[in-house]
């Protein structure tokens, strides 16, 4: 199983986004539609999910708890359901201080684990207050996990709670050390939930160092940084794509997890390249 991302733009010009959808169509199983990613205001995830669907690609609705209270979240879940959106990814969401509306009031009426409970309830015909729904939802609901969180134990406890709350699949934060990831998967395999490993393409040695220094929960091993350096500036991106493809191939061939989630961050064009090089297309 391969998923990727479609990032809604800030503004009404969706030409580039439509192009990304076109490139991904027929190649991947589904595309996450991000929800005001990094707390930066953009087109709503729900609206873009509908566009993704109309254009022949399966959407996964990302839902964060930052911008809506429980009434808003449930209303949008019902809306997504009648639009035929089948998968939802439940997250708490980055804090408003990370985004471009820092003076906004963050909502966090509920959080990721509780949102999973809400989806489970709605799949069983009940809203959060226990009222009967006139027609229940039928979502395939998932969540996120950071396999290299530091410290790891509290994150693993939360992973277990998310499964208990109804998460049927997980997409992970970017991973670069397959052996470490195998250890995480040994833990994850005690639950019957699907895990898609997060893949983020390294564009340069500089980007790898930036991830190590500034993005919590991501560690790029030194060997990979060396490999990117050795490739030189011009071939760095090619090398990054090869590394991603190599990881995807190993995860697939050794059946380490159930699939991959490729976060191309503006390079959606390259997702099919990675899949081809991994032998998946």
């Amino acid at each position, binding site marked *: 199983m391969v998923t990727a991302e479609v990032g809604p733009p800030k503004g009404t010009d969706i030409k580039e986004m439509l192009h990304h959808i076109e490139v991904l169509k027929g190649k991947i199983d589904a595309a996450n539609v991000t929800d005001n990613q990094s707390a930066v205001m953009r087109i709503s995830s729900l609206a873009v999910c509908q566009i993704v669907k109309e254009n022949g690609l399966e959407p996964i609705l990302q839902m964060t708890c930052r911008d809506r209270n429980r009434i808003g979240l449930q209303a949008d879940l019902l809306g997504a359901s009648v639009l035929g959106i089948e998968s939802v990814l439940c997250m708490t969401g980055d804090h408003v201080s990370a985004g471009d509306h820092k003076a906004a009031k963050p909502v966090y009426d509920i959080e990721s684990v509780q949102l999973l409970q809400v989806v489970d309830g709605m799949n069983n015909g009940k809203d959060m207050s226990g009222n009967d729904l006139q027609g229940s939802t039928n979502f395939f609901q998932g969540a996120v996990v*950071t396999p290299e969180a530091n410290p790891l134990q509290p994150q693993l406890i939360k992973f277990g709670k998310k499964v208990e709350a109804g998460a049927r699949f997980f997409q992970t934060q970017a991973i670069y050390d397959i052996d470490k990831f195998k250890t995480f998967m040994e833990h994850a395999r005690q639950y019957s939930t699907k895990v898609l490993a997060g893949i983020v393409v390294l564009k340069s040695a500089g980007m790898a160092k930036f991830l190590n220094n500034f993005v919590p929960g991501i560690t790029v091993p030194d060997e990979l940084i060396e490999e990117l350096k050795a490739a030189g500036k011009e071939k760095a991106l090619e090398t990054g794509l090869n590394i991603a493809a190599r990881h995807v191939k190993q995860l697939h061939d050794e059946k380490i997890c159930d699939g991959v989630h490729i976060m191309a961050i503006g390079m959606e064009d390259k997702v099919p390249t990675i899949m081809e090089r991994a032998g998946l297309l």
Partner: protein
Amino acid sequence: MIISKKIDRKKLLETIKDYNSFFLVGCSECASLCGTGGEPELEELKKELEAAGKKVTGTFRAKTGCQVLGTKVELKPFKDELADTQVVIVMSCGAGTQAMVEAFPDKPVYPSNDSLFLGNMTRFQMFDERCSLCGECILEQTGGICPVTNCPKGLLNGPCGGTSNGNCEVSPDIRCAWVRIYDRLEKINRLDDMKKVIKAKDWSKSQSPQVLSARPKKEGKKTK
């Protein structure tokens, strides 16, 4: 205690610029400990007002400024000073200021402080927020550390993915609340507490404005 901070003095002087005579009210409780409404601060503001050409008719430090009836009684000896006063400036929290609004129905009452949070003094005049008064305490489930207050996202079921070496992604100079909770539960041998899903909070329990009567109910008097 209620943590307060002095309002920018320029702003205060601008607010009161049309008046000439002032009575200053401090508070012996939180505001004294915060250095915003004790004797030294009353004296300091008095001097600043006088330097600005204003008259200060008197200063007074309430025992507990949010205790409305008691403070009104304490104010009785200041009858003459108050007769000469146009404006009362209150140097405590917002509750103390509003107590004085009740005591002086016919005078403008202005605050000299911003009220910030409910917290603890960790060192001399260093304060940490500890409780957001959510109305339904869950400390028994979280090792006695409040995630509603200490986690910027108010997460109730464990850390987000942004914990960085045990610190918070939103405020990197503080420890992640959930790492603290995990460490403490481990120490007191209650890690299983963290494995139970904490349900969504009932925010109606903290809906403002709240009232409470803690008086024992009088026998024979039934409320309908």
